[in-house]
Structure formats: structure tokens, C-alpha cells
């Protein structure tokens, strides 16, 4: 019941946001807007490159942070003996989850853009966003793993399974729906971030759609930011349009997460 009310409120908030944005974006909306490159002239500005950039960033973030995060969570929960090291690592991860995203941008600038010589590319952006999502992926995955009933583990051990067989065969499948739900929430929040990408040096006018992670860093959130700080009135509508596109991308990510979770629950039910 309370759950239903909360869901309704969230849906209402989301709808309101969408309506406002769409209303603002209406004047800018035509098919060309979706695919055109951004421009210095509002009339000709499109979100093609920014949209492609965000899709790249989402893919890179998930590809880096998901395996590393889940792997770390498994290690911490199932392998590392409780005690000194575990306590220190847990504390560190929990603290990292609370570090503001802009600070990740500063660290990413020093580490990925300059230190590793990636330059302000999508790859550097993906690495930074992955680092930003990682602590939350670890924390939520650990919670999901810990929620697996002890009896399930013991039954598997009693049947002569090795630790890895227990983890692979029983613990991970049972924890998978929780891991996916928690991780996706983290990814969705991360992909909507502008601040760290601005620090890395995202470009605000991109004339071609990025085709590889080595292309310049561009994304919907940074594009929204760039356009909304322009003084010309026309750009406000374009910015709103990009905002709607961003919401749609995140919505699609959410739907994908739901489908994956359904699948996983079907398997283990």
C-alpha cells in the first residue's frame, strides 16, 4: 500500500517534469533535432552527438563498473575473512560512496585524462563515471549477497561444492535480482551526471557523432548544461529538448533493468 502511494508519487513527479520539459522543448522538436549535430545556432542545433556520447558512456560505465563491482562484492562477502582488512575496506567503500561527483571529476582529470594520457575522451569519461558508480554497485551487491539465506549456502557446501561452486551455482543466482536492481539504480544516476564530465573537459559543440571511445567527450547532461547557460532565449528550448532525451535514455535503462530482473527471477523461482 505505502509502496503503491510512493510509486504513484514518483510517477507523478516524473510526469510533471516530463510535461514541463516537453512543453519547453516543443518549439525545438523535429526529427532533425534528434540526429543533427549541435551548433552555435539554436535553430540548427541537434543532440545527435550528445545522445551517442551518452550511450557510449553508459555502455563503458556498465562494462567497467559492473564486473569489478560485483567481483569485489563477492570477494568481500564470501572470501575475505571477517576482521581487520574487511572492516577497513568496507569503511573505505562506504566513504567513497558519499564523495561528491565533482570530486570524482577532479580525480578523473588527474588520473585518466592527464596521468594515463587519455585526454578528454569518452573513454576517460567512462572510466570516471565507472569509478563514481563503483562504490554504490559494491555496497548494493554486498547487501544482495548477504541476503541470500545461510541454509542455501550450507546445503551447497554439504553437497561437496567448492567455495566457487557455491558462489557461482547458488549465491550469485539467488542474489542476481538484487544486484541488478541496485547496480542499475547506480548506473542511471551516474549516466545523468554532468559535473564530473564538465571537469574532465566535455566539449559543448560537437559536430559529428562519436564513433569510438577515443572520440571527444560529449554527453546529454553536459550538453543540457552548455545550452542552458547560453544567453540566447532559443537555446532554452533546445536545452529542454536535450533534457527530455536524457530522461528517455534513463527510462529505457530502467526498463532494461526491469526486464533483466524479471528474467533472473524467473530462472531462480
Amino acid at each position: 500500500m505505502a509502496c503503491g502511494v510512493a510509486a504513484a508519487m514518483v510517477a507523478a513527479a516524473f510526469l510533471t517534469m516530463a510535461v514541463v520539459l516537453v512543453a519547453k522543448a516543443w518549439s525545438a522538436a523535429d526529427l532533425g533535432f534528434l540526429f543533427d549535430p549541435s551548433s552555435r545556432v539554436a535553430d540548427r542545433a541537434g543532440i545527435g552527438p550528445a545522445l551517442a556520447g551518452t550511450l557510449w558512456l553508459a555502455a563503458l560505465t556498465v562494462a567497467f563498473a559492473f564486473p569489478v563491482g560485483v567481483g569485489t562484492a563477492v570477494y568481500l562477502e564470501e572470501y575475505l575473512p571477517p576482521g581487520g582488512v574487511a572492516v577497513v575496506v568496507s569503511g573505505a567503500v562506504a566513504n567513497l560512496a558519499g564523495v561528491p561527483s565533482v570530486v570524482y571529476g577532479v580525480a578523473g582529470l588527474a588520473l585518466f585524462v592527464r596521468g594515463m594520457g587519455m585526454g578528454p575522451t569518452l573513454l576517460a569519461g567512462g572510466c570516471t563515471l565507472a569509478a563514481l558508480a563503483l562504490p554504490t554497485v559494491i555496497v548494493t551487491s554486498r547487501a544482495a549477497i548477504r541476503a541470500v539465506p545461510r541454509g542455501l549456502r550450507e546445503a551447497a557446501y554439504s553437497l561437496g561444492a567448492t567455495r566457487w561452486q557455491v558462489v557461482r551455482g547458488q549465491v550469485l543466482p539467488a542474489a542476481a535480482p538484487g544486484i541488478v536492481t541496485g547496480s542499475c539504480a547506480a548506473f542511471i544516476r551516474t549516466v545523468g551526471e554532468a559535473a564530473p564530465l564538465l571537469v574532465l573537459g566535455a566539449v559543448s559543440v560537437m559536430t559529428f557523432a562519436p564513433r569510438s571511445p577515443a572520440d571527444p567527450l560529449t554527453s546529454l547532461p553536459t550538453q543540457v548544461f552548455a545550452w542552458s547557460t547560453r544567453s540566447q532565449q532559443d537555446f532554452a528550448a533546445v536545452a529542454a529538448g536535450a533534457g527530455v532525451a536524457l530522461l528517455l535514455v534513463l527510462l529505457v535503462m530502467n526498463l532494461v533493468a526491469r526486464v533483466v530482473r524479471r528474467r533472473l527471477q524467473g530462472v531462480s523461482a
Partner: protein
Amino acid sequence: MSVPTTRAAVPVLAAEDLTVRFGRRTALANVTLSVPRGRVVSLIGPSGGGKTTLLRAFNRMNELVPGVATTGTVRFDGVDLHGDEVDPVEVRRRIGMVFQQATLFPRSIFENVAFGPRASGYTGDLQELAEELLAAVGLWSEVAEDLDRPAMQLSAGQQQRLCIARTLALRPEVLLLDEPTSALDPAATARIESLIHSLRQDYTIVLATHGRRQAARLSDLTAYLAGGELIEYGPTETLFTTPRDRRTESYLTGRIA
């Protein structure tokens, strides 16, 4: 005796001066007991007496509990189970266990039976193996038409039998059964009891039970455990008819719950 001991003379399982503590609580205190090959041994006694802990000491399950401390020796075929070269995974493959609460995997019936053999690298036909074991526990006729059904849909009695089949799939030498009928109605209990009776030909069985009659019906030897101590251990008939210890006697006559 200096005569070389035959295999039959070495007890399958032996606890020597075994003490198990969970944190500050002592679950087993200085227990010495041996299980002869091919016999059924019952562990009886009040709740919290240490039956489960002793069973779990026999296949090294206690060490999975954080904060557990074990002293003393447990031998399997004369070999110290806590010896350096002993792999607990191998121990659990040879000494099978069925838990107090049936804990099936949230998978199909077939997957439940297949998990153990797969884990130990079984190369034969799993379908055939499943059929054989489900038949051995009298479940085949009830589930044959759909082995891909979720195991959780089975009745409690069927679940317990599936748990036993799943353990038998390891081809263990010893079966540790922890109150296999505590959650079952009389009819399902009777089925499990006749199953245990038929398994005694092929396995050494250690059975923890609250049912004094069950112990009397099924076992050759009975141990009475209370407060973590082994109070009395001997042939079932002797223990039930002429217990040596007064505590055993009052438990058997029902003066202790």
C-alpha cells in the same frame, strides 16, 4: 591386540574428546563416540543438547560458522579429518548430510539432484542418475512426468525425500540425517522411516532425532546427549530397557522434555 586391524574393525567415524564452542557457548563438551561401519546410530536428547553440532562435526560443516572453535579429534576411517592434507570438500562428498529443515535449491527437481554430482565432476548420464536416486527414495513415480518442475512446489515430505536423494547422488559412504522427520506428518514420517530402513544396507547412518520411538525402531546403537555432553552410549535395546545413567532414564521416561 597386535593383530592388524581389518577395515571393519576401524570405526567409520570417531569423535575423540571433541569440544565445540560457538563464541562462549559450549555446544559439545569432551565427547568421545565411535560409529561402527554399516550400523545405524541414533543421537537423542533434549533440544540444544548438541546433536546437530556433533553431526556437523562429522563432515566439517561447523567450520563454516564464524567464531566456532573445535578441539579434540574427529576420525573418518581412522584418518584425522582436520589433518593438513584433508580437503573439507572431499570430506563432504564422502560423508553426506541431510539438514533439519529441508533446504532445497530454488530450482527444478532435476537441478537439485544434479548439483552435487556436477560439482564433483560426474561424467555419467545425469538423467539416469536422477531417475535411479528418485526411485531409491520412492519419489520417481510421483515426479517422473515433470522433473523440470520447481522443487519448492513439492510437499514437505517429498521435499525431504528429494533432499535425501540429492545427498545420495554424491555416492557417500556415510549419511548424516538431522531430524529428517521433524517437520512431517505421520504418513510422511513412516515413508522416510522405511526409506532409512532400506538405506541401512548400503550406508552407515547417523540419525539425530527427537523421536525416542524412532530411535528405538531404526537404530542399532543410541547415544544420549544433553547439555553438550555424551551421557550414555550403547546398544539401542540396552539403553532403552536398562539405562545406566539416571539422566538417560528420566529422559526416556519423559520426565525431561
